[in-house]
């Protein structure tokens, strides 16, 4: 069932280098499985990467962040979740009448909206939300600054630096 086309080999290598190593470093179980996964999984990871990018379309966030999540989702899935993810990806393509991720963004969104409420849609949306917005590398891009104890809080670092409105009296 596994066919080693160039693109799939490339995907696997990228996963190992970019997504895989970062995830392995995070100690999340199943990552090694993901990195060495069957080529069929790599196709799914690419599709889910596109799904989560469409759900959270941040152009300023590196695409690898989305793919890290997709790889983790696929790599840590138990057998029933894995089947659900596989079926969800297949369903996107079925509704697209081809390869869903190659459609334009408007048509992709329309098909995704139609999948709302499915376990596939919920798993990617909830998991993607948590993965992205608890990642300080991501939220720092939006201006969030994370833990502050080590830096002495914000008492001397701008808790009252707003200068475009009068000071309360």
């Amino acid at each position, binding site marked *: 069932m596994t066919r080693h086309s160039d693109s799939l080999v490339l995907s696997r290598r990228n996963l190992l280098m970019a997504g895989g190593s970062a995830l392995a470093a995070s100690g999340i179980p199943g990552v090694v499985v993901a990195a060495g996964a069957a080529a069929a999984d790599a196709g799914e990871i690419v599709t889910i990467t596109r799904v989560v990018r*469409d*759900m*959270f*379309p*941040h152009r*300023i966030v590196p695409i690898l962040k989305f793919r890290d999540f997709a790889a983790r989702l696929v790599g840590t899935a138990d057998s029933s979740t894995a089947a659900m993810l596989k079926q969800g990806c297949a369903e996107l393509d079925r509704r697209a009448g081809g390869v869903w991720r190659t459609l334009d963004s408007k048509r992709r*969104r329309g098909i995704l909206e139609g999948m709302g409420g499915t376990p596939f849609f919920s798993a990617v*949306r909830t998991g993607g*939300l*948590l993965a*992205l*917005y*608890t990642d300080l590398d991501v*939220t720092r*891009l*939006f*201006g*969030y*600054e*994370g*833990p*502050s*104890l080590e830096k*002495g*809080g*914000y*008492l001397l*670092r*701008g*808790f*009252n*630096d*707003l200068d*475009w*409105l*009068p*000071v*309360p009296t």
Partner: protein
Amino acid sequence: MTEISKRDPAVVIIGSGAAGGTVAHELVTRGIKVVLLEAGREIGPAEFIQDDMAAFGQLTWMDKRRATGNWLAATSSPAMPLWTVKAVGGSTLHWNGLAYRMQAHEFEPRTRYGQVAGTSLADWPITLEDLLPFYERAEDKLGVTGTHGIPRHPANNNYRVLWNAAKRAGYGSISNGNLAINSEPRDGRAGCIQMGFCNQGCKIGAKWSTQASEIPKAIATGRLDLRTGCMAVRIEHDASGRASAVVYRDGNGVLQSQVARVVCVAGNAVETARVLLLSDSGKFPSGLGNGWGHVGRHYTHHVGGGTFGVMPKPVNMHRGISVPGSLFDEARHDETRGFVGGYLIQAMSVAPSFLASLLDAEDWGERNADFMEKYDHLAGLLICGEDMPRADNRVTLDREELDALGLRIPCIHVDVHENDRRMEAHGRLTTQVLMDAVGAVDVRQVRTALATHNMGTARMSRRPEDGVVDSFGRVHEMPNLFVSDGSVFPSSSAENPTLTIVALALRQADSIAERLGRGDL
């Protein structure tokens, strides 16, 4: 720590939060031995996590519940409709420190609001005047800013937005005071350094909690036996109807029994009602204190809702105190607005993960992503208003599902009253106006699903037939069984409940100590 024998009749308190921790401390300082049962474990400042989602996972009471009715939680979070804490200190670990007194009229809502169809509104058996000395003491114990000569905090950025918006809109009553967060070192606790993680457990102890204050003080007296990981499952009584022992599951999952001369229940409204209901017996077939059928009923949790606005320039709302101040003008009772009771408007910041979750409930895609990318330009507002008690908004024991011990899980049923909907709509309009007043370029309004203020499931009443406990929290039908927490509130008021819970707990502790002193208990 002191060990009290399980056969030694002690005062047994269930729950170590604002109420249980306060009553325990008051009694041990008067020489009375107390066994304090806490379902959670001890989580200290070194363990608190400055990450909203991780802290949520660490602190939150996750035991399964079931929500029914037409409130939002029943569809969006049916297995976990409440957001409370399971740890030593209870929900004082995650509260935001807003320490407001109730208003005089809120003690007599039935009289002042009149007959409101579809509610079970009742006057409190005490007045503001009765509670004033205890509010004074509570504010001193908690170190509330703006009271007892304690300076207010300097205004942070998010508060500055609220203040200016309110002034431009024409409001007059705005304050950054009445926070139980030290503005300077006091009572052995540090002064606030504006870390911005009030809700995750304060890592420097500047925010008051029973974990940071009453419990260590109580342990130091040598008269407190704090048992963590111990979940009370049943209160037993003798033939005369006096509470005689508390059965609990210890940290190893083994059932234990502690002989008691007085029992105080302070498990937060849902678990308090549950343990009273689980304690049914031949003498009390529908549960303890439930002779008139009020246990679990009249559950309230405040009208809520959040508004976030993209400001023309940066705000950085995450810098500093999470809920730094409030606007009180809409907290009045004024029926010309189309509803009874009132609501507070509070400046509020949330971290990106929480904000994303709130936005996600309404929409997904480009609109949310663009909003999230403006995080440093956002200001946040929250409303907190009086919701209507209804007899059928209630905690019951679930008919189907059992917990690990084979005990029925709590079911919380809420049907939202029309008055609550009108108030929420008014609040949304007002917060939209406030955002516009300071030039917001985009505004998003979100609904809050998880109930953090839980009240009313064992309400106090003058006549036994109207409630569960008297004004001291003593169960009408059992002389030595007390309810100490927010369950005793007949109505929610607009204000955050903790200061009132502590004031009532101080009053109750005085009463218990006095009765024990004259051999009355």
